[in-house]
C-alpha cells in the first residue's frame, strides 16, 4: 500500500510542478522570428478533397492565379499574369517573367496549360467550377480529346484561352483555378492524383508563403518565400491552426496563441474587453435569405413570399441582434452596380402581409420546418425571432438545425419547405446562375427552391455573353427587379464578418475576407511590430 501511496504522491508532485512552469510562449516571439498565427476552421483538404474553408486560404497563401481580385470583389489585380487582352472569345494573358516555383524551377505558360487541363478532369468537379466553358472541354469530357484545344501556350510567357462563346465572367471563373506546377504533377496518373503526398507533404506553389509542414488536425506551417515575385514577405512564417469549434479558436486568441480570429458578433463585447485588439469587419458578399420552396403549392404564389418579407421586421433584428453588423439586402446580388435604386425594401407591415396571404388563399393549418445550418448562436436567435414574426401573420414555422450533408440530401429529395441560407456572389452576379435558372434544379444544379422564370433565364444567359459593362448593368438590374418582386428567396441581409486582429500585427486588414474567394490580400506586407 505504501508503494502505491508514494507513486500517487510522486504523480501529484509532477502535476503540481508542471503547473507552475510558464506556458509555452506565443509563437509570434518564437526564437526572434516573426510568425503570424491564424485560426482555420476545417481540416486541410487536397485538390480533390475540395473546397473546405481552409483550402482557399492555403491556396491564397501558397498558390497564385492568373489574375486576382480585391477582397470586395471589385478590382482586378494582376497576379501571375501582368496584363491581358480580349478579342471576341479569346483571352490572351502575358505572364510575369520573374516567377519561380518554391522549389526554384521557373514558372512558364506550360504550367498554366497543364493546370487548366487538370481542372477539366471530373476529379476537380467538387470544387464546383470545372472549366466547362473553355473550347474543347466537351471533347475532353467525352474522351475524344486528351487536352483542351482552347488553352494554348504561344510562348513561355504568353497563354491564350479560348472560351466556347464570348464570356464576360472569365476573370471571375479563373479565380477558382490556382496554377499548379507541371513539373511536380505531370508524371502522376490523373486518377491517383488525389492520393499523392504532394498535397499534404510537398505542396509547391508560387505564392508568398511556402508549405513547410502539415500536422493533421493540428496545424499547417508555412515559411516566407524569399523569391516571391512581389517581394520577400516581411513575416518569417505563418501557422494556420486548425480548429473544430469557434469557441476554442476565440479562447486561443484571448490566450495569445493565435493573432487573427474571425468571430460571431455575440462575442463583440468580449473582444472589446481584450487589450491590444483591433476589431475590423469585412463584407461576406453573401446575401442570407429565407429560401422558400416554390415547388410547394402553398408557397408557389409570390404573394406568400412577399407576405413573409413584409412580416419580418428587420430593423430591430439588424440593430439589436446583429448590432449593425449586417447590411439589409433586397436582391440576390451584393454588387451595388446590379442593384437598381427602385427596389422594394419591404418595410415592416404585418397588415399588408396578412392581406397578401388572404389574397393568395393562405390557410394557417400546418407548421413548416425552418431549417438552418449555421452553427452560431446568432443564427439560432435570429431564427426564433423570425419564427415569432411569421407567426403573427399566420405562418407557423419551427426552426430546426441540421448539418450540411443533411441539408443537401433534403434539397435533393425536395423535402425542405424552407431554409435559411446564402449564396456567395463574390465578383459578378453571374455566380447566381446555377441558383436561379430553370435548368439548374438539384441535384445537378443548385436551384434549391425550384424557382423558374424564363425571363430571368433569358437575362442571365444574356449577361454571360455580354461583354459591355454598361449593358450588363442594365441586364442584372433588371434581374434584380424581377427577383425583388417575385422573391425567389426572401432576401434578408448581407452579414459583415467580425475579425479580431492583434494590434501589433500591421497590414492585415485587407488580408481577411470571404473564405470562399481567392482574393489578393497583400500577405507579403503583413508585419509584426513591437
Amino acid at each position, binding site marked *: *500500500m505504501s508503494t502505491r501511496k508514494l507513486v500517487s504522491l510522486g504523480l501529484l508532485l509532477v502535476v503540481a510542478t508542471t503547473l507552475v512552469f510558464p506556458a509555452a510562449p506565443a*509563437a509570434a516571439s518564437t526564437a526572434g522570428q516573426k510568425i503570424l498565427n491564424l485560426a482555420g476552421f476545417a481540416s486541410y483538404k487536397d485538390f480533390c478533397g475540395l473546397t473546405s474553408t481552409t483550402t482557399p486560404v492555403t491556396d491564397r497563401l501558397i498558390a497564385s492565379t492568373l489574375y486576382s481580385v480585391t477582397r470586395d470583389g471589385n478590382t482586378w489585380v494582376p497576379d501571375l499574369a501582368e496584363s491581358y487582352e480580349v478579342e471576341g472569345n479569346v483571352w490572351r494573358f502575358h505572364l510575369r517573367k520573374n516567377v519561380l516555383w518554391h522549389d526554384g524551377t521557373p514558372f512558364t505558360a506550360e504550367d498554366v496549360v497543364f493546370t487548366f487541363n487538370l481542372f477539366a478532369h471530373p476529379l476537380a468537379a*467538387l470544387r464546383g467550377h470545372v472549366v466547362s466553358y473553355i473550347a474543347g472541354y466537351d471533347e475532353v469530357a467525352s474522351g475524344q480529346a486528351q487536352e483542351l484545344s482552347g488553352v494554348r501556350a504561344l510562348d513561355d510567357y504568353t497563354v491564350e484561352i479560348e472560351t466556347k462563346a464570348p464570356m464576360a465572367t472569365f476573370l471571375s471563373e479563373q479565380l477558382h483555378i490556382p496554377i499548379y506546377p507541371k513539373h511536380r504533377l505531370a508524371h502522376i496518373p490523373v486518377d491517383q492524383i488525389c492520393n499523392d503526398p504532394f498535397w499534404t507533404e510537398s505542396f509547391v506553389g508560387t505564392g508568398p508563403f511556402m508549405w513547410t509542414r502539415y500536422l493533421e488536425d493540428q496545424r499547417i506551417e508555412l515559411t516566407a518565400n524569399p523569391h516571391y515575385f512581389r517581394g520577400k514577405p516581411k513575416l518569417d512564417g505563418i501557422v494556420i491552426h486548425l480548429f473544430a469549434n469557434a469557441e476554442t479558436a476565440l479562447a486561443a486568441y*484571448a*490566450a495569445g*496563441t493565435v493573432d487573427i480570429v474571425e468571430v460571431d458578433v455575440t462575442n463583440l463585447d468580449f473582444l472589446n474587453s481584450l487589450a491590444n485588439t483591433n476589431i475590423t469587419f469585412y463584407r461576406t458578399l453573401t446575401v442570407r435569405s429565407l429560401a422558400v420552396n416554390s415547388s410547394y403549392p402553398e408557397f408557389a404564389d409570390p404573394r406568400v413570399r412577399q407576405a413573409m418579407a413584409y412580416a419580418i421586421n428587420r430593423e430591430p433584428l439588424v440593430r439589436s441582434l446583429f448590432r449593425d453588423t449586417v447590411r439589409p439586402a433586397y436582391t440576390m446580388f451584393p454588387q451595388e452596380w446590379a442593384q437598381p435604386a427602385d427596389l422594394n425594401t419591404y418595410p415592416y407591415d404585418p397588415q399588408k402581409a396578412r392581406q397578401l396571404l388572404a389574397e393568395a388563399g393562405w390557410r394557417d393549418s400546418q407548421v413548416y420546418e425552418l431549417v438552418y445550418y449555421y452553427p452560431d448562436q446568432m443564427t439560432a436567435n435570429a431564427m426564433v425571432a423570425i419564427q415569432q414574426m411569421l407567426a403573427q401573420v399566420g405562418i407557423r414555422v419551427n426552426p430546426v438545425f441540421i448539418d450540411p450533408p443533411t441539408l443537401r440530401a433534403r434539397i*435533393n429529395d425536395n423535402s425542405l419547405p424552407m431554409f435559411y441560407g446564402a449564396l456567395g456572389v463574390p465578383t459578378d452576379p453571374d455566380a447566381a446562375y446555377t441558383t436561379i435558372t430553370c435548368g439548374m434544379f438539384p441535384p445537378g444544379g443548385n436551384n434549391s427552391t425550384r424557382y423558374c422564370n424564363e425571363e430571368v433565364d433569358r437575362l442571365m444567359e444574356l449577361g454571360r455573353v455580354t461583354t459591355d459593362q454598361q449593358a450588363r448593368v442594365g441586364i442584372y438590374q433588371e434581374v434584380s427587379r424581377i427577383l425583388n418582386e417575385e422573391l425567389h428567396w426572401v432576401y434578408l441581409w448581407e452579414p459583415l464578418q467580425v475579425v479580431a486582429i492583434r494590434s501589433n500585427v500591421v497590414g492585415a486588414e485587407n488580408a481577411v475576407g470571404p473564405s470562399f474567394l481567392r482574393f489578393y490580400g497583400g500577405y507579403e506586407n503583413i508585419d509584426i511590430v513591437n
Partner: protein
Amino acid sequence: MYAFLLRRLLMMIPVAIGVSVLAFLFQELSPGDALDAMIPPDVAVADADLEYWRSRLGLDQPAPIRYLHWMGRVLQGDLGYSLTSHQSVGRMILNRLGPTALLMAFALLLSTVLGIATGVVSAVRQYSWLDYLLTVSAFFWLSVPGFFMGMLLIYIFAVWLAWVPPFGYSSPGAANVWLDRLHHLLLPGISLGLELTAALTRYVRSSLLEVLGADYIRTARAKGLSDVVSVLKHGLPNALIPVISVIGLRLPALFGGSVVIETVFQWPGMGNMLVNAARSRDYPVVMGVTLFVSVMVVISTLLTDIAYAVADPRIRYH
C-alpha cells in the same frame, strides 16, 4: 481459467459484428452521404460529375453490398480507405492512437489516484464538513458537461492565468518536446480526469464505509492498531476489490469523454477524428474507429475480470 479466457476471446467475434452492423446502420439512417458532405452548400456539381464521384467512392452500391465489401476487407486485416482523405483507415487510427492513449492514460491515472484518495477521506471522516465538501464537489463534477468544464478550464488557466496553452498537442518550435506535450496535456487531461474522479469517489466512499463496519476492522482496532493502519492496511484493500471493476469498466466512459474533450481542446486523437468523420459521413473511418474501440472495450473488460480474480482469491472463473 484458460477455457474461460478462450470463451471470452471468442465472444469478441459476435460483439464486433454486432457493433459494426449497428454502426453501419446508424450511418445509413443519417441523411446525406460523404459526397453530400463534400460539396459546399452553395456549389453546383453537374450530374455526370456527381455520378463519377459516387462510383469512385463506391457510394453507388446498395448499402448491404457496401457493408459486406467492408467486412470482407476487415477479415483480411484491412479497414479500408477514408472517403474524404483517401488515407488508409488503419494508418489514420494508428496516427491518432498515441494522443488518445496519452490523454486517456493521464485521465485514468489522475482519476484513480484522486478518486481513491478523496473516497477514503470522505469515508473516514463521514458526515464531517470535509465529507460534505467532497460529496458536493463530486456531484458538481458529475453534473457539469465535459465541454462546458473544458471551456471553463481554458478561460481560467489558459486565458486569465496563462499557465498552460489553451488548445492543441504541441507548439510550433517548442524547445523541449516532452515538457511542451505535458503542458498541452494538463487541461484536457484534468478535464477528462475530474469527470471520472467524481464517480470513483462515490464508489470508494460507499465501499469503504461498508468495510469499515466489518468485524475484522473492529478486531484490528481491538488489537491496538492505529486508525490509519487499520483503514489503509486492512480496510482499503478489501474495499478496493469492487472498485477494480469500476476502474476497469471506465474505458467506454473514457473514450466517450475524450470525444468531447478532444474536440474542445483540438487534441489530435481518435475522438476528434471520429467527430470529423461523422460530420463528413466518412463511414469507413467511423466504422474503423467504432470497431477498434469496441474490441478495446471487450479486452479491457476481460482484463478487469482477470484482475478481479487475482485481487480476490475467492473468485474463480470456470
